[in-house]
């Protein structure tokens, strides 16, 4: 079990790291998508089927499209620009800032009292139970998210449409 987790972690973190190191923007985007797929595999490993497939559907299926469209529509040229070393002070500041954030995150994760049960098989949640819980105790969050998504969709439609009311319809 832990071997599988080790390989998954290597995949996720490795793709993300290589994505940051590469200069070709499309390669970075695709490796990031690979990292998200790795996270979906992690959810499967943890027994959360629904979340895993939702992750693939939303991240790999939709958000990746957004990222790729954004890269495509705004790309200036094909030659990847090399990043140059500007100054030592900037480098040290970067190291300190990044290290600080990493330290805070690690401290928070390791300091949290996680319930680690090794031998007992965790009860698997069927989709029906998930649905019942979403509609029961967690209805409020579901409704808020629904409202948020509707507003986002309406805003997107408004932003994208530029038709004035008196303009004639398109030709058939």
């Amino acid at each position: 079990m832990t071997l599988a987790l080790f390989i998954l972690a290597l995949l996720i973190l490795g793709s993300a790291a290589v994505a940051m190191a590469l200069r070709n923007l499309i390669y970075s985007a695709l490796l990031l998508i690979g990292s998200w797929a790795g996270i979906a595999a992690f959810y499967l490993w943890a027994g959360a089927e629904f979340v895993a497939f939702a992750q693939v559907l939303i991240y790999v299926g939709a958000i990746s499209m957004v990222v790729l469209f954004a890269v495509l529509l705004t790309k200036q040229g094909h030659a990847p620009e090399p990043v140059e070393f500007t100054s030592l002070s900037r480098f040290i500041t970067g190291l300190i800032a990044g290290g600080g954030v990493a330290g805070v995150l690690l401290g928070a994760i390791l300091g949290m009292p996680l319930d680690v049960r090794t031998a007992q098989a965790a009860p698997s949640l069927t989709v029906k139970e998930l649905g019942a819980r979403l509609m029961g105790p967690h209805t409020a969050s579901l409704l808020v998210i629904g409202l948020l998504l509707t507003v986002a969709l309406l805003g997107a439609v408004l932003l994208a449409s530029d038709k004035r009311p008196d303009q004639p319809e398109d030709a058939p």
Partner: protein
Amino acid sequence: MNAPGTDYYLERAPLVLRDAIVQWSPVPAQWLVHQLITIVAILAVFGTFFAFTTIAERKLLGRLQNRLGPNRSGLPWWKKGPKLWGLTQPFADAVKTLTKEDIVPAAADKLLHFLAPVLVVTFSLLTFAVLPFGRNLIPVDLDAALLYFFAAGAATELAIFMAGWASRNKYSLLAAMRALAQVISYELPLLLSVVPVVLIAGTLSTQDIVLHQGHWTFGFLPHWFVFTPWGAAGFVIFLVSALAESNRSPFDLPEAESELIAGHLTEYSGFKYALFFMSEYFGLTALSGLGVTLFLGGWQAPCPFLQFIPSYLWFMFKLVGMLVFFIWVRGTLLRLRIDQLTRLSWQFLVPLALINLGNAAFWALTAGWTGPLQLVRWGVSLAIIVVPFVLIGRRLSGTRAPRIYRYAAS
């Protein structure tokens, strides 16, 4: 449940075969052999199914267009031998694609150019894992099977984009973005047309949905979802969206020859092109299989006394029926433009699918109505979906007068 069918020897034959092979292999590898047999069986069955779909399509399209299809490829070693009605044509095509020169443009992104067809076939094949081919023949019985199916299908869009980008051809890229716009536009009606089924069946598992459709009223009318008002509407929306999802006529704008050569496939030749072609057919077969599962009762027989025909044969009959319908539609309808396509999806199918969802909710809430109230239930349910269909249809085509063909003979 359906007792006559469960113990029937023809039904159990594939399982008995598989268990025999598993027993015969060494114990440590038995779990591997068990899964491998399923995988090999699916690849073999649907590989040959794909091959014969291509020849069936060409011959059927030919007959629909007043001509014969290919009927010349006989057996290779018989010079004057029987022509076999052209049934060996797929093998001739396979030899042709394998021996064609594989051209990769010099400026193309070699890794992505190579990966795109591989990924597109992989994700199309992954969707076959949750289709229930028979009573006991589902490769992986997942609880969230439908979600898995759509997740695997969504990943194929990524491969389309990769194909268009990697060719380093601005027309390929443009066509890939149009293809992507088409696929994304029709994901929504596809998913929305499936949600009523989930609502009524109460489960995302495909095997359970098929079991839900297993009863017969008066002993001969099957309870398939397509025979309910919301099911019929959902099925029609599903059909249209499935055609658009797999880039098939009349939605074959991305790969039509008069459109930017071959769209995102322009720079592909030989076997890579064949892989894209294969993935399109696999996607179509998988979506047809899903349509059969969700709306046409899956592997259920239409009447109880027809249950002597094994369930996997029923699934195949229905699958073939759906594919024949798709080929019929291809031979009849004209190609849609990209703006007509997207308008159809967003302004017509999505509102209808949402209304259908309300329709299915009404159906579920009035499940207790019996006797003459049943007629009221059917009437109201039909009205809920037909009236908006007519009204939205009228409103959308109101600004465009019906075409008058002055010179075509009626």
